[in-house]
């Protein structure tokens, strides 16, 4: 009896909640945006981490009120906002979204609510760069799939895409890149107060922010458009923008016609279109493939070389060395390689070691796989019968000579098959370099696919790239194995007796 009553109460509450939520669905405006590194648009309040703030947050609250609704924020991921909208994770995108030709094919746009410009930022001591024209042979950081990245692409300026502005500006400080091109709101928040950075030239190139809606959601679009007009006309948006330091001449120019009821002029607004061309895409994929190969071979070299002393230390070393080697192995095997890379990339600069991304990936994966290779070696060395050592000693060999001439070559035969496996998996693991913005195949895939919407076709191409590289490697390793096994039958002896 005591149990039944609380249960009934819970059921009652759930029913009420359910009815309430169904009834209120009409009155809620669910909006999606990426809050990570998302200042000043929408981001986590540093003083109250479960709370979101930002000028767009305030704007959507005002907009929802103007529409007679209640705003509900759905945190999402910038790169996948469009598909999340289509999956109905939320009703509108409000995230400094620019209307582009390719997006127009997938979603509806509201009226614009903000005019943004782009700002180029460089290091304070750097006097080489005063405009984008000075960047032809330098690397410029920006956010992926934005007006800025498309402009860099169109002008053939080498650029690196970041997930959020923080990473881009930090890499600029660390000299990993030469400049950052960013929408003014983000630049104003993240870079303008930074003493180590400065603006290179004035803001340029105007663009619009609009709200994105699902195709066919015309009724909601009408409501949103009316709401935008309302908060512009009654000055709500102006006061929000002023509060966030984003009010400028461009906004005055943009809002005045709406507020006075005259016809809106959008003639001087550039609407960027993603210019996706397959030749360019393949060129960039090929470059990414070369970076992938470089990272894979470089890190395997580190792993193969460093693995041996680790194995020997753990196998025959004095106790202190054994402890160190075991600790190394367990650390690198027991923590995710992704975390290790992030640590090397973002953590090491704190103590003054700032490696470029590709080198970080190369070294990080090398250190990680050295732990695995050491275990392969150890198992292979332990698999050599004790009699081989004793036969070598009996012939007068020193331990080092016996190891080098007798034990190691035999252990190598045992080690080769697992090493081959490791190399193929290392090859695929290079894709974690994506996390530190290295332009390798996985990064290239994600970015090109996001820019073009060609997830399927590009996915196939990228897979072919991976296979074209890993299959020959696996084949080569098999040949090597076979040739070593083949020595048990008759073969010329010149091959293995090196003087």
């Amino acid at each position, binding site marked *: 009896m005591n149990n039944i009553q609380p249960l009934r109460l819970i059921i009652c509450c759930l029913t009420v909640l359910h009815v309430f939520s169904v009834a209120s669905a009409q009155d809620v405006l669910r909006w999606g945006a990426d809050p990570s590194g998302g200042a000043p648009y929408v981001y986590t309040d540093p003083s109250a981490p479960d709370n979101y703030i930002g000028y767009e947050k305030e704007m959507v609250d005002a907009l929802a009120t103007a529409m007679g609704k209640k705003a509900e924020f759905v945190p999402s991921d910038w790169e996948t906002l469009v598909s999340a909208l289509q999956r109905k994770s939320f009703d509108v995108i409000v995230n400094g979204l620019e209307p582009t030709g390719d997006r127009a094919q997938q979603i509806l746009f509201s009226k614009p609510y903000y005019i943004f410009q782009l700002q180029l930022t460089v290091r304070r001591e750097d006097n080489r760069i005063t405009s984008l024209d000075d960047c032809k042979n330098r690397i410029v950081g920006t956010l992926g799939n934005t007006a800025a990245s498309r402009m860099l692409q169109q002008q053939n300026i080498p650029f690196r895409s970041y997930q959020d502005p923080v990473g881009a500006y930090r890499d600029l400080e660390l000299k990993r890149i030469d400049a950052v091109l960013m929408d003014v709101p983000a630049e104003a928040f993240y870079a303008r107060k930074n003493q180590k950075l400065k603006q290179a030239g004035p803001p340029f190139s105007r663009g619009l922010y609009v709200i994105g809606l699902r195709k066919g959601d015309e009724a909601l679009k009408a409501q949103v458009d009316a709401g935008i007009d309302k908060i512009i006309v009654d000055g709500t948006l102006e006061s929000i923008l002023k509060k966030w330091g984003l009010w400028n001449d461009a906004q005055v120019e943009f809002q005045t016609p709406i507020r006075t009821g005259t016809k809106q002029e959008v003639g001087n607004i550039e609407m960027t279109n993603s210019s996706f061309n397959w030749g360019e895409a393949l060129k960039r994929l090929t470059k990414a493939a070369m970076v992938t190969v470089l990272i894979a071979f470089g890190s395997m070299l580190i792993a193969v070389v460093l693995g041996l002393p680790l194995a020997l230390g753990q196998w025959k070393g004095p106790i202190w060395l054994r402890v160190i080697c075991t600790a190394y192995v367990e650390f690198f095997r027991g923590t995710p390689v992704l975390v290790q890379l992030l640590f090397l990339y973002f953590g090491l600069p704190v103590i003054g070691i700032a490696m470029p991304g590709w080198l970080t990936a190369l070294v990080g994966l090398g250190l990680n796989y050295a732990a695995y290779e050491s275990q392969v070696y150890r198992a292979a060395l332990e698999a050599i019968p004790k009699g*081989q050592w004793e036969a070598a000693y009996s*012939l007068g060999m020193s331990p080092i000579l016996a190891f080098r001439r007798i034990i190691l070559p035999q252990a190598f035969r045992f080690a080769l098959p697992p090493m081959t496996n490791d190399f193929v998996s290392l090859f695929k693991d290079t894709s974690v370099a994506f996390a530190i913005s290295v332009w390798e195949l996985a990064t290239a895939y994600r970015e090109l696919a996001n820019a073009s919407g060609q997830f399927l076709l590009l996915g196939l191409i990228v897979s072919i790239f991976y296979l074209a590289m890993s299959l020959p490697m696996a084949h080569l390793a098999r040949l090597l194995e076979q040739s070593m096994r083949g020595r048990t039958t008759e073969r010329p002896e010149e091959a293995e007796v090196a003087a």
Partner: protein
Amino acid sequence: MIRVSGLRKQFGSNQILRGVEFEVPAKSVLGVIGASGSGKTTLLRCLNGLERLDGGTIQCNDVVLETNISAAEYRRRVKNLRLEVGTVFQHFFLFPHLSVLGNVIEAPVHVRGVPKKKAEAEAHELLDAVGMKHAVRRYPDSLSGGEQQRVAIARALAMQPALVLFDEPTSALDPRRIQSLRALLRSFVDRGHTMIIISHSIGFLGAVSDNLLFMEGGLVVEHGPTGQMMKEPKDPRTKDFLAQAE
């Protein structure tokens, strides 16, 4: 000449050798007999330095291995001892990654520093002598047990040791091959090698050895010329052992 005196070896509290004494004249074969656990194999492993002595001395030509010397000096003498003593293991332990020729020239080239061409010429002679000339380019895995043994013999002899140790050389051979092994070993004795052979096959040792040595409980029970030991052993324990082996 090989002289062993007061040789002691123990594993933990287990005394394996309790003061072994014997001499082997140059260019002769000593056969060592005894039941399993009598210390034969440990004796062999002491003679080629694979086990560290706990007491006594081993003298082989100019090299004297003893226990009252520093660790570094002991290591140095073990190294010298191994240049004087070659071993043919029961399971041969040929190097599987090297060809037959590679197995034979490995130590001369890399330990003695013999030029490769010269080492190869000598190896061909040795392999011819053991009847393995046809297989110089083959790899150990493709050889029969008897063939592997002949390669192992050639490998040990290539270092020109004064003394060659054999651990159970007949265990992998059929009777016909045991006969030819006997002839082969005698031919090497005629060329000036000295041998110590451990075997359970009294018949084989009776035919190949100049002297026999019977061990029991880590001690030498009886040691004498083969003919006399076989026909009229002095010690009753030797008599019992030989009677049971018949």
